[in-house]
């Protein structure tokens, strides 16, 4: 009965869980900046959730350090479907300046399919929001695919 509404809601209310896998904090503060009055991501329903169990979109920032690798995999596993993974900045996709370091076990694509990648070091909040917006639309598609 509510099938359509539920599918539509999937795009309208994406909750984020932010994973810092060894980031320098540059991307992290820009993600938070998205929620500030100037960018106001909440007008599209974005909300930072406290637990991956509540999240729809996993926002990953930082090269995947060896220490954070298992935690990343576990957290992604613990997120209920439908879910999206968004990589913020260059680090998760490649390792950025930390590439090749003994402490890095990236990139993110090795562990999970990255739905949207946002480039920049750090990306502007506008770019992050654009990426999240894209991810929200993907969520709706994934939700539709779930009951097929």
């Amino acid at each position, binding site marked *: 009965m509510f099938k359509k509404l539920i599918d539509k809601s999937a795009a309208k209310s994406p909750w984020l869980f932010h994973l810092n896998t060894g980031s320098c904090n540059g991307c992290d503060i820009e993600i938070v900046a998205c929620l500030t009055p100037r960018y*106001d991501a909440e*007008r599209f329903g974005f909300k930072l959730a406290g637990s991956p169990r509540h999240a729809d979109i996993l926002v990953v920032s930082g090269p995947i350090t060896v220490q954070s690798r298992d935690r990343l995999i576990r957290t992604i596993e613990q997120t209920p479907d439908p879910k999206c993974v968004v990589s913020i900045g260059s680090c998760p996709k490649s*390792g950025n300046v930390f*590439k090749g370091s003994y402490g890095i076990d990236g990139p993110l694509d090795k562990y999970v399919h990255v739905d949207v990648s946002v*480039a920049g070091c750090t990306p502007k909040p506008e770019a992050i929001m654009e990426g999240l917006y894209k991810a929200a639309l993907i969520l709706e598609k994934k939700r539709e695919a779930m009951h097929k």
Partner: protein
Amino acid sequence: MMFPYLTTALTNLFRKPSAEPFPNPEDMGKPRYRGRISFDADKCVDCGMCIKVCAPLAITREEEEVEGGTNIKRSFNMTSCTFCAYCQDFCGTKAIQLTPDYHMVAEDPEDLITVGTTFKKKVLGKLACDIDNCIYCGLCMRSCPEQAITVDRTTKTWTVDHDKCVKCGMCITKCPKKVLSFKEAAPEGVVFSDSCVYCTLCAKKCPVGAIKVNREAKTWEIDRETCIKCGQCVTNCPKKALSMGPLE
């Protein structure tokens, strides 16, 4: 006051929200923002400076031999870039530009790679300088991506390390007096001079037996084919009559 922002909050109710409109594709960013990389392949001279200065190894170079030269494919991976703009700063020909475009969002990571292919003609010869006209300004030294050129104004010397030189031609374009050029250099070898006393020491020292000296006939011959240019003869010559240098 216990709630310092109470008045602010209440007055804000009657003000326009300061949120910017979104999405806003027309907004291409602020002028000095370092965003999407644009690469003009035609300008590129393949000096390799960009690759050298790139800390996160975001720039890759692929060679493809074609007739009359090489196709050099340069790709700038923006999911690996730190946007430090060193490549832009170091690019002598301004082929690399970091535009203010910040919309670097893609579902497919291939969309975030800027690619350009440069055709590079095969360059023959080596870098040479017309020493007489050189003013030792040092511009060539500074523009050289590989630091192959050394210029010393005090002693008035100009030297080039041909092993380091990548033949990008940057120095040639930079040279104010236009004294630099790629020249087919003369082959090097042992050079004989008149101060020889025909002591045959060189012939004895030569590891491959390329030198033949006849004391009686006062002739000195060298077989250029067998010579390995080891320099044993030059160092052992008591009269310093032999030297390594360009042949005529």
